[in-house]
Each structure stands twice: as C-alpha cells, then as structure tokens.
C-alpha cells in the first residue's frame, strides 16, 4: 500500500537499490511474519530483530510484524510456500520448534526444503530443572529415578507431547539406556513459566524447557537446574553443569532465526543473511540476548541451511526411534 502512495519515492528507492547493488542492504519496507500470537518466542524474534535492523540502519523503514498464528507455525509455512514463494521482502521467524515439526511431518506434508533458512542469531539453551527442595541433585540421579520407577517422576514442559521439550527428556533417557518411553510421564502446559509453576508447586517433579524460561525462578531460588543441554557451560550461569560433563551426551538448544521464501534470488537471500549477521554483531542484540537468557549462536547463510537439514534429519530419525512418529 505504502508503495503505491509513495510512488515516486518507491521508484527512486528501487532505482537506488538497482544502481548500488544488493550490498547496501534492504531498501523497501519489509514484513516479518511471526507464526504465532503476540507474546511468544517467534513474536519476540520478529519484533526484536526487526527493531534492531531498523535502529542500526540495515533497513530503511521499520519492519512490519504480522502475527499469523495457526497449526504451530504450519499456517504461516503453508502461506509462504503457496502464496509468497517469490516475495523478497518477507522474513519469517523460526526456531527449533519449526525444525522439529517439519521433521515430524506436522505441517501437513510440507517439507523443510520448501523454504530457505537464512540464519540463527542466538539460542536458548535447553535446561532440566527441579524444585529447590527436591532431593535430586544431578541429572544422572533424576534419570535413575525414572529408570527405577517411571511413575514416580513426572515432567512438565511448555511444548506438546512429542514436542521439543519432551524430546529433550527422551533423548537423555535414551542415553542411559531407558527405552520404554510411553511410561515416561510428561505434561505439556502453556509455556515454560507455567511448567515451572507446576514443578515448584510439587505437581510435577522436574521441568524441561529453555534457559530464558527459568532465569527469574533460578535467581529467586525457587528452582535448581540439574543440567544445561549445551556443549559448554553457559556464560553467566557457570555453576550449572552441562549434561555432557555428567556423562549424558545430549545437546539441545532452541535457536532463534529466520527463513525466507524459496524462489527469491540468491542476491536477496544473501542480503537477508548479511542483514542478520549485522544484527548478530551489534551491541543492541548482545543486550537483548543477555536480557532474555539467550546464548550466542550465530550461523547464517548456507552454513545455517546445512545445519537445519542435519537437525531435521536427526530429529526425524530420533522421533522414529523413540516412536513419536511412525
């Protein structure tokens, strides 16, 4: 609409971008689709990345955020694939949940190769926490308790059964040789904070989620993290041991990133990748990450595309192994 109204200005901008090439950045008002209602992680991705892109000048106009909730991101995915496949001014928020659902064929037959993944610029480390007064001290203790009596330990998480939070627990149990996954008690509640509430209230014995969801409760001493699911300990949370160093080889981070339509030109793809890299390097983003409990996790361009492909294949295999999908 604004393009029509500002006819001559838009034309000038288009000429300018033609003249100067793609390296100068994005020149039109772009749109970021958050495939969920306002308030979640995807919404945060669009709003914060969009705001920083505008603030530091990689885009000229503020990025317009559209919330398109539906099908756990499937509605937006379908929309992009079938209606906007060549829209170069469109970015879509994505995360590990997007990859998980694609791997589990939860988007009604849509596959990961129908869009192009641009990059991720931060990741929320996976964590497993217990209430502060819990007798359980370490991750192996928790897993042993499940092995001894699966009915005695219930987990709460912010994703549905078979979702990313559930998989974290199942992966860890898989590593200690426990395969009777249907006996593991897991309830999916409305978000990580709710899962913590249920655990602190004693209704469940442990909570599986992301670091950002527990930061406040960790500081207030309501919960204790028994493990963080990263390669290295997370800066700022150095006293939380990784699962790996406890002998459980599980790494699960919830990255925050973007995808774009499939049929845009390589220049346009590169333009977004560069823009994302600029955001990743900015102090504004560093500030946002710290405030939201995100750890640095920068992968852009083809590097990221390969990473997503690997993750999708891995989750697909694992979901089959543990019986979440056929």
């Amino acid at each position, binding site marked *: 609409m604004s393009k029509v109204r500002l006819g001559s200005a838009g034309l000038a901008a288009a000429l300018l971008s033609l003249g100067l090439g793609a390296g100068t950045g994005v020149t039109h008002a772009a749109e970021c689709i958050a495939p969920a209602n306002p308030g979640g992680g995807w919404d945060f991705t669009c709003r914060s990345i969009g705001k920083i892109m505008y603030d530091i000048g990689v885009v000229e106009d503020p990025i*317009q955020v559209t919330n398109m909730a539906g099908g756990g991101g499937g509605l937006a995915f379908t929309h992009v694939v079938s209606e906007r496949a060549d829209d170069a001014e469109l970015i879509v928020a994505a995360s590990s949940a997007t990859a998980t659902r694609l791997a589990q064929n939860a988007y009604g037959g849509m596959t990961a190769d129908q869009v192009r993944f641009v990059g991720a610029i931060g990741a929320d480390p996976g964590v497993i926490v217990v209430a502060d007064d819990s007798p359980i001290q370490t991750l192996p203790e928790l897993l042993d308790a499940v092995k001894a009596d699966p009915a005695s330990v219930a987990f709460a998480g912010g994703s549905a059964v078979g979702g990313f939070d559930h998989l974290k627990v199942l992966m860890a149990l898989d590593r200690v040789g426990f395969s009777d996954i249907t006996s593991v008690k897991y309830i999916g509640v409305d978000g990580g904070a709710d899962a913590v509430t249920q655990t602190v209230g004693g209704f469940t014995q442990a909570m599986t989620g992301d670091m950002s969801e527990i930061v406040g409760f960790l500081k207030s001493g309501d919960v204790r993290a028994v493990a963080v699911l990263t390669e290295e300990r997370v800066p700022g949370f150095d006293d939380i041991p990784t699962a790996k160093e406890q002998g459980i080889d599980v790494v699960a981070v919830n990255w925050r990133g973007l995808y774009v339509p499939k049929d845009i030109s390589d220049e346009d793809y590169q333009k977004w990748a560069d823009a994302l890299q600029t955001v990743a390097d900015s102090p504004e983003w560093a500030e946002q990450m710290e*405030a939201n409990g995100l750890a640095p996790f920068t992968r852009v361009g083809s590097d990221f595309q390969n990473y997503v492909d690997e993750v999708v294949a891995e989750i697909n295999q694992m979901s089959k192994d543990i019986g979440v999908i056929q």
Partner: protein
Amino acid sequence: METFSLLADGFAVALNPFTLMLAVAGCIIGTMVGALPGLGPSNGVAILIPLAFSFGLDATEALILMTSVYYGAMYGGRISSILLNIPGDEPALMTTLDGYPMAKAGRASDALVLSGVASFVGAFLATIGLMLLAPMLAQVAFLFGPAEYFALYLLAFSTLGGIASNNQRKAALAACIGLAIAMIGLDNSSGMPRLTGGNMHLMDGVDFLVAIVGLFAVSEVFIFIESHGKSSAIGVKIDKITIPVKDIVRTSGTMLRSTVIGFIAGILPGAGASLGSFLAYMAEKSTVRDNSRFGKGDPRGVAAPEAGNNAAAGGALVPMLTLGVPGSGTTAVLLALLMTLNITPGPLLFTERPEVVWGLIAALLIANIVLLILNVPMVRIFVKVLSVPPGVLLPGVTMVSFVGIYSLSGSSFDLLLMIAFGVLGYLLRKLDVPTVPIILGILLGNHMEDSLRRAMVLSGGDWQYLYSSKIAIGLWIAAIVGFIAPLFLKRFITKPSRVEPDEASDG
C-alpha cells in the same frame, strides 16, 4: 509503610505531564478498541506496540500507555454489550445478559453509568490488591495443579445451566455445542489434530473472537436483513445521562463481592477475565434472595460481571509480573512487550526494577480515575458512535468486525468461519437457544479438558487424584452445590409467569 514510599516514587514517575498524557490517550484508544466488536484488548495492545517503539518511549512510558489501553479496553467492552447486545470482547459477554435488557427497557444510560462505576470499583480495588499483595498472591499459583484447575472449570460449567433460566435444556445444548467446537484443533496433550478435516487453519482451534463476532454481530445482520430493518434489536435510544445513585448504592455489595471473585479468578493463570466475570455473575445470581429479575435487566446483573471482569484484569497482572505466567491473552501480549523492553518479569521484578513496577501501579490507579471520568460523565461521546440509525450502524459494525477478525491471523478463512458462525447464530436465535453458553464452552472447554488430561497423566489414570487436595475438594463441593441447589431452590422461589412462544413446542 515502605509500600507507600515506593508508591510515592511511582506517582513521581507517573504524574509528569507527558506520561499523564499517554495514560489519557491510552484510555481513550482502549475504550474505543474495547467498544468495537471484533477488536479485542489483545489485538488492541498488539497493534499499538509498534507505535510505542516508533515514538521512542522508554520502558515505563511504553508500559503505562499499553496498560492504559488494556484497562480502557476492559471498560469499553461493556458499551456495545449494553447498547448492541454484541460483546465488545470476551469478558464483556456476561454483561449482555442484563445490560441489554436494561437498555431495552429505556435505562441504557443507567446501565452504562452503573457498569462504569462497577468497572471502576473492580479495577481500582484490584490494583490496590495487586499493590499490597502481589508477591504474596503469587504463591497461590503454586497451589493449583491440574486437579484443582479441573475442579475450578467444573464449578463454572456446573452453574452454567442457570444462565438461561427459562430453559435449562437449551442452555445445556448450547454448552455442548460450545464444548464440541472447543475440541477442534491440535490436541494439547498429544499434539494430534482433531476434527480439523486436514485443514491447517483449524489446527489452532476456533478463536473466541471469531465465534463471538459471528454469533452476535453477523447473526444480528441476518435478522436485520430478514426483517428489512424493522425488528432489529439494535437502535437503543440514549436518554439523558444521569447518575443512578440508588442503583449504585443498592449494588455496592454486589460490586465488592464480585471484585473479590474476579480478582481471585484473575490471579489463577489460565482462568482469566472471562471466568472472573462469569463466576461473579453466577455467584451473585445464586446468592441473592430474589434472583427472578436476572436476565431481564437486573442492575446487579450488570454490576457483577463488570466488577468481576475488571478485577480479574487487575488480578491477571499478578502472575504476569511475579511469575512471568500470563493469565490471559492480553497479559501475554504485555509480557512480550516487557521482554522486548529488556524487563524480565518473574519473582525478582519487584526488587530488581521497583521503578517500573511502582510506576506501573501508580499509572494504573491514574488510568482508572481517567477511565471513570471518560466512562461516566463523558460516556455520551462513545455512545454517539453507536447511536446512529441501525441502517448505517450495522454495516459499519460488520465492516469493523471483518477488519478486526482479518487482523487476527491475516487469513480469509477466519472470515468464512465467522460467517458460518453468523448463520449458526441466526438459526439458534430462531430456535431460541441462548448463544452465551456456546462461547463459554469454547472459552473454557479446552482448559478443562487439558487439566483433566494432565491430571490423568500425573496420576497414571487414577480418578481419585481429581479430589486429592483440600482445594480440589472445596471446589468439587461448590460445584456440586452449584449444580444441585438451583433444582431444589426452584420450588421455593416462585417465578413470575412468563409466556415463552417456544416453551410449548419444546415439550
């Protein structure tokens, strides 16, 4: 006393001319957003967030603007409930039951002023409750597990039959339709789609706003067309605005009771304002001695849900600020706003960022007073919008509905769904089936099912888990009493005889 010095600091933040202006602007925008069907408070706040950023507002200012919009929308929702019989947003649903009959009886302005005052009492007391008790009340959320939530929703449903007192069976039928619609979408416990017919648009279920606007606004359009505009219900005359002092005094007890109920419902994450207004209405109806006027324009039936839903709006800020758990759709949006502003709500917010919290509380108190002024003496301005002839108004309302619903998900599917609900609403109104229980079924059905499923997972399928705690047992007793008591009390309360055209054919 520390509280008061902190509050004084808060007022120092909130009382500078610029923030005060933001509060007033937010209240006006919010009331408009609330009054327009199809634009709920969560949409209103979500749409305005980019605005806050482009003005370059700082954290406190942005928060003050947004919460003013939030409270304003809670006030505004009642206006179209009373004047058009179309709830402006979900929590204003219950206000249609008595507010609209009151308006029809020529007491529209009384209903508006009374509900404005009730909103003020509910919201103001809830804000004070938030101020004094928030850190303590946060603990309440820890006491509610799946079994307790299930019992709470059961309590709501067991009193539902009383909504349409003329025909309980039709109310029950409507509730079942609502529950069936609630089952559509992704099953939270297993992640499997149900009743979606493979349609991606139905994966997240049916949005309440789509159902509300369809059942109330669109069906009204059909009735209007059918009668060539003659028998349209819309078009209430606004008489001179006076303060119905007698009603306000008479309903003061109602307001206070409803405020307490609403506030508690608000504190519980997930229950939210709709449950608050519903429980407040039902509690009032079942405890007062003569409830025969309920549903026909009883001032208490107007005061109760409005005090209840506004108190719940304040209550919902408790878990959002202290736990980071949003108690409603709108608080989820506010939570996102806070996160974007680098403020992480949680147990430490009150100690780490006191200037934000107390500035917010002071702003809420100010916003309430502004809203009381806007909604009582100046209610005419808002009413003007709605008092144009129905031939002009209805197309306008329809247009706003379409735009509002389209803005929800940006898909035309919701528009088609809304029209389908309009047809359903038209048929049901012809059959004299109440539509309010349908909305409640959609609104609460999912939460109730999720709670039950989670309880079953935790207990390994043991049903006794559902009444294994004191809180759960208390709620069960209340639910059973709420269900059975009206059946017995009916014999003792002589209702005025009414002639219902459909009663005979219904058998």
